[in-house]
């Protein structure tokens, strides 16, 4: 399965093999650890140089946990993580400075990730001092050019985070990440809180930086409309389980994993009012995922009784580099999910373009 996902033209740099993560707290009194279901369960993928892999899924699907594990902020319970020749299973404080420099993470909320008592200039200068040993005087010029790179006026260096808008703060967070000259950027819902014009500015900015530097990105989001145009490849995560991986063009076209199909249907169609609510609410998500069978079985409209709840679904390669983890065969998925409204919608769009 891992080999399949890596069969892209680009040489992969980040390798995640069979990663599992678990949040478990020892009981307050007994000290016993209760067995919680893993937040990330046997996830494998790779990100190539200069490539953008989008990781999509609902809140609680384990997207952020994966990013935090790669950044060394959360321990992996099992699995192998490598970046180039570096082992990523080490926590961030035990990683070599070079590795810490190469992988940078940007969080959703810049209000929480920027120190509000520091001026923007000193926020951006910190990685310059840390990784390149630049003095304050030397870093001034570099800070100015980083501010220019994220299209902020250079006099913003003197301001405090509270004195600028949310979109501008997110650009400061990006400038700080870029100051380390990373080769892999972990972007955790970085545009979700911003309004559309600020979103467009930031996406365009990241794209132009990527074109210049061959930066790799793990782009975590729940906004499929952004993924559709911004990513090279996409991995769909459902409650800690990967269910579909492939190039964006493939994943956004039939056959779909039943969950991907559901996610795509949930994206609003711009300019079309819905006159009816969806076909009843999907069955309520139970608080813990099933321990056997397919993680998505309880919500799946195409579940095969007696199979999906008991047996782990196999990975099926449906096209080069495109894999779906489902008991249903590609031809069945094509027939069942390909007719879904979204499939038709995207194909019409594709036909109009060509």
């Amino acid at each position: 399965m891992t080999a399949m996902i890596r069969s892209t033209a680009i040489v992969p740099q980040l390798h995640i093999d069979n990663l599992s993560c678990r949040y478990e707290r020892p009981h307050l009194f007994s000290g016993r650890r209760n067995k919680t279901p893993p937040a990330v369960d046997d996830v494998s993928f790779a990100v190539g140089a200069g490539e953008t892999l989008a990781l999509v899924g609902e809140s609680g699907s384990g997207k952020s946990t994966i990013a935090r594990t790669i950044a060394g902020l959360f321990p992996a319970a099992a699995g192998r993580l490598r970046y180039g020749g570096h082992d990523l299973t080490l926590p961030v404080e035990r990683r070599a400075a070079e590795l810490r420099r190469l992988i940078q993470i940007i969080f959703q909320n810049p209000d929480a990730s920027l120190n509000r008592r520091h001026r923007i200039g000193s926020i951006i200068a910190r990685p310059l001092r840390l990784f390149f040993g630049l003095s304050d005087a030397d870093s001034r010029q570099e800070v100015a050019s980083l501010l220019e790179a994220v299209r902020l006026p250079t006099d913003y260096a003197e301001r405090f985070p509270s004195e600028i808008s949310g979109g501008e703060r997110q650009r400061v967070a990006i400038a700080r990440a870029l100051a380390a000259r990373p080769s892999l950027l972990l972007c955790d819902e970085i545009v979700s809180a911003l309004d559309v014009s600020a979103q467009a500015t930031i996406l365009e900015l990241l794209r132009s930086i990527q074109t210049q530097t061959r930066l790799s990105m793990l782009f975590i989001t729940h906004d499929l409309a952004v993924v559709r145009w911004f990513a090279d490849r996409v991995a769909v995560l459902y409650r800690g389980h990967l269910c579909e991986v492939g190039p964006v063009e493939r994943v956004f076209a039939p056959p779909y994993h039943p969950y991907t199909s559901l996610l795509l249907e949930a994206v609003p169609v711009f300019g079309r009012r819905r006159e009816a609510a969806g076909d009843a609410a999907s069955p309520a998500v139970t608080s813990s995922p099933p321990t056997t069978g397919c993680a998505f079985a309880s919500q799946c409209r195409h579940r095969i009784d007696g199979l999906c709840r008991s047996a782990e679904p196999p990975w099926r390669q449906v096209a080069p580099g495109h894999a779906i983890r489902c008991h249903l065969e590609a031809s069945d998925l094509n027939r069942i999910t390909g007719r879904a409204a979204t499939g038709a919608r995207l194909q019409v769009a594709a036909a109009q373009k060509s």
Partner: protein
Amino acid sequence: MTAAAHDLMTVASLTVDYRQQGQWHSVIRDLSLAVRRGEILGLAGESGCGKSTLASVLLGERRGERRLRAGSVQFDGIDLSTLRARELRRLRGVRLALVPQNGGASLTPTLRIGSLFAETLRAHRPHMNKAELAAEARRQLSQVGLPDPTGALARFPHQFSGGQQQRIALALALCRMPDLLILDEPTTGQDAMTRRGIIDLLIRLRLSSRMSMLYVSHDLATLSEICDRIAIMHAGEIVEIGQMEDVLLRPRHPYTRALVASIPRLEAPPDPALLPASRRTPERITA
């Protein structure tokens, strides 16, 4: 029908100022707007354009650092500025309701969900006994798609995720069956499935009741799914208002056009500069 008869809430030539470091700055300028009976009106604009201030003024909220310099806000013929605090509270509790932007923060952290509902429901349905109150709360919670409503009643707000807190806040507003529901960014930051659930619920309400809604959001795609009309706000003014299809598909104001153009859409490719290098050649989809 006269304007007054089919308008539930009317804002006429409203100017609102905020005081900052001793100086008054206007954040809403000469704004006129009406929410019609039974309609869902979308109010869109970027952060800082005054949307949330307008929502707060429509609720009759009064704050020291803010003043209504000119104009009026009328709800069903009642000028909100003439009401005493107690009358305003009664109006807000029964006929006017708000789901605030950060719904979770509006839930009293020390009260269990069951008590929050009991408090709200008792004000509106004084005849209900304990069992009826609990049953009604469960009904409302399952209506907003919260898993395990019975268990939820015994839990505290912090035991729910942000999206669930938002839905609880919505359920609390809905159990009053207000004439006008003001929703301030109810789906922002929520993932696609949660957003779908909230939108489905609002559509069902729209079909089954005559509740009017003012839906404040910067997410034009979501607004287009449920709104009858849309108003676009920019720098404290309404720059364009009309039927949803007219405003979003045939925008006339340059600001609306720019806003519409910047929306990421599943169907339509954006500026080619946004595409990754590997995808700048024409895309071919083989089914």
